[in-house]
């Protein structure tokens, strides 16, 4: 399922898309710049929780979005933990989770149409489309990951990161190809 705008009357729905995009970029940057540690871990989780509350939407919608990205977050956190230790792994995990949640809140409270018209995206159609597609792609990828996991479970296979990763990458690349075809299938001058 692609994360879609949900009609609502909360404060985030009323904010201009430009402001939301800038806030998204600024908070994401701030999260990345925070030094690793228990404090940063707590900040990441607080940002994620605050974004869910501020969205003013039925909690189930954003919780489902969050649960879908959780396998990714855990995978990234585990990989960083493996290479750089537990402190860095947990901080990275909470940062990525917070950014995923912020992206989800942004797409749920902002029409893509408004994102495309926001400054500075309205200055370049290609840039705007790229950002819109990226925002759209996040929940799509999480859904693909879930599909692979379910398909393997339905065949009685034990969960395994190694077994899950390859079909997930193949499906993701196939999806990227499909999106490319779908975009070119629209009426555009021949290349």
């Amino acid at each position, binding site marked *: 399922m692609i994360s*879609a*705008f949900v009609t609502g009357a909360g404060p985030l729905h009323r904010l201009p898309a430009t402001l939301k995009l800038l806030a998204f970029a600024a908070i994401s940057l701030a999260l990345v710049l925070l030094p690793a540690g228990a404090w940063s871990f707590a900040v990441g989780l607080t940002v994620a929780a605050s974004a869910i509350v501020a969205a003013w939407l039925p909690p189930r919608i954003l919780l489902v979005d969050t649960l879908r990205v959780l396998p990714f977050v855990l995978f990234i956190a585990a990989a960083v933990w493996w290479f750089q230790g537990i402190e860095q792994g947990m901080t990275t995990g909470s940062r990525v989770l917070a950014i995923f949640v912020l992206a989800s809140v942004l797409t749920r409270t902002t029409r893509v149409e408004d994102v495309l018209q926001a400054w500075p995206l309205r200055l370049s159609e290609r840039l705007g489309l790229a950002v819109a597609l990226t925002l*759209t792609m996040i929940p799509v990828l999480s859904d693909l990951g879930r599909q692979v996991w379910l398909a393997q479970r339905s065949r009685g296979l034990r969960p395994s990161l190694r077994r899950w990763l390859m079909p997930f990458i193949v499906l993701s690349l196939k999806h990227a190809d*499909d*999106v490319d075809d779908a975009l070119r*299938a*629209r*009426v555009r001058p*021949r*290349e």
Partner: protein
Amino acid sequence: MIRVQGASVFAPSPDGRGSVTILDDATCTLAARRTAVVGENGSGKSTLARVIGGLIKSEGSVDAPERIGFLFSNPGAQPVMPTVQEDVALSFRGRGLSRAEIRERTASALQEHRLTDLAEHSCHSLSSGQQQRLALCAILAGEPELVIADEPTSFLDGRHRRIVRDRLFADNAPDLLLVTHDLELASRCDEAILVEAGRITMQGPADAVVATYEKSLE
């Protein structure tokens, strides 16, 4: 008018050694308003359509209208934006229209295709029939000179098949290149070509080509 001259497409062979020919030196001139492309599965008819539509590159040359819309057989592969309204609005972007004009034209296109009630729905929550109507709406919104439809009714129930068919064959519809296994639909075209094993083996009035193809299936 579509002119295809010596178009060939190759793909790596399954064993990884060498290549297999998908489309073999296809040459044709299509001047009819509606042309059907018929042939068995794997014959290369979809590849020919994609070559004409500019979705895949080939050897040889293709001279086709500037504005082409492509309709896939799998309607789920067509939407790009999250909601129905946003997906149709995308077709109006890049044409120098103001935001208000885009909104107005999107609403009008949705109404024309009876999709207004679904405007706020997620594209991927729609049925196959609704998705194909959306895909057709989004493509026609781009005002194409030619629509290439690759088995556009194969995923649809009877009602949606009729709706899509009627749109494609409407008097005011753009020119049509229709890849289909539905021989009744192919017969409604003015002209048809038969593709066999990557080669165009016959071109002529749709009835005659369809009759020859049907005979070859017996």
